[in-house]
């Protein structure tokens, strides 16, 4: 008779990244068409005045706490989404070497840029 040792199950930390991936994907799906419509069609066609999105207006939007929060979310979440997808695509393409390094580089990049945007926005807010 074969004696089976109880199998050890190791919990994955994927829920964290999957959560960010899902949230980012949702945002991207909803916002990308709007951004293309605004910057690619409505402004070039003159339906919306280019003045509506000029530097001063955007700067004053960023200087408000809610504007800063919106920009942070819009930049950070799609970034986590993208790098999560790149990380998994590397596996799908059969790039098996240095999986943990791939993970560090992908999520590290998303984290670093998120922190960078956060501090930048904080600087504008406290200016």
């Amino acid at each position: 008779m074969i004696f089976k040792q109880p199998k050890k199950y190791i919990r994955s930390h994927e829920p964290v990244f999957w959560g960010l991936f899902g949230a980012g994907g949702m945002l991207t799906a909803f916002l990308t068409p709007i951004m293309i419509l605004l910057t690619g069609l409505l402004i070039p066609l003159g339906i919306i005045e280019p003045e509506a999105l000029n530097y001063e207006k955007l700067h004053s939007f960023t200087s408000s706490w809610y504007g800063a929060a919106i920009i942070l979310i819009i930049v950070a979440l799609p970034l986590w989404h993208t790098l999560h997808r790149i990380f998994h695509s590397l596996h799908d393409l059969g790039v098996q070497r240095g999986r943990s390094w791939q993970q560090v580089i992908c999520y590290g990049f998303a984290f670093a840029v998120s922190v960078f945007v956060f501090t930048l926005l904080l600087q504008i807010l406290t200016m």
Partner: protein
Amino acid sequence: MSKKLTPSEKRLEIEILRYHPEQDEEPYLQQFEIPYTTDMTILEALQFIKDHLDSTVSFRWSCRMAICGSCGLMVNGVPKLGCKAFLRDYYPNKITLEALANFPIERDLVVVMDDFINKLEEIKPYLIPEKEPQFLTKGTYQQTPEQLEKFKQYSMCINCGLCYSACPQYALDNKFIGPAALALIARYNRDSRDAGSAERMKIVNQEVGVWGCTFVGYCSVVCPKGVDPAAAIQLLKVESSKDYLIGMFKP
């Protein structure tokens, strides 16, 4: 040997991947020509070949009505049940039959299913009651239609293995627990009579559990019983995330 074909009979070309590990270096394709009728299935074509053309062709089959899950094979590269796929959907083009992808070949169209069977066993695919199982004399376990609806679809699995041969993640890494096993975890965890969720969630929460899936969804496309394992896995991802959050606050 060969059955006489009358000239008026329509014919169809079929090629079969042959492999007898004890004598063949590697698998090779063998051509056959069979009489064609509109109501013939792939399984019947194989039976015709075995009875009249070459008795050494090996394949699994039993019920002929898509319930035993034995006759899974690749038809032109797509995982199908031989008994549920009809020649008329391919005629007059040639049909190529191969053993189910992602499984080792035992002989011709027969594959070694051990890995899949072990995974099925591992997930405890049976009701684990909270208390001692009650005797039938005490009556049956009652369920509302809503409680039944929560898991019914996932209970239609016949363990044919088509989803495993469709799954690109299982092809890359067969440590992945796979679509059918995960769908069955959903089936039992979502059943109101079951109390084994905690045990099964340990399997789900692993990297090779539900997180090995990247939601390609081909498993649900090829499933002959409409189980939709991809949806079951997505539901389990949400459950696993909840479990993760709860786990952070519990020692």
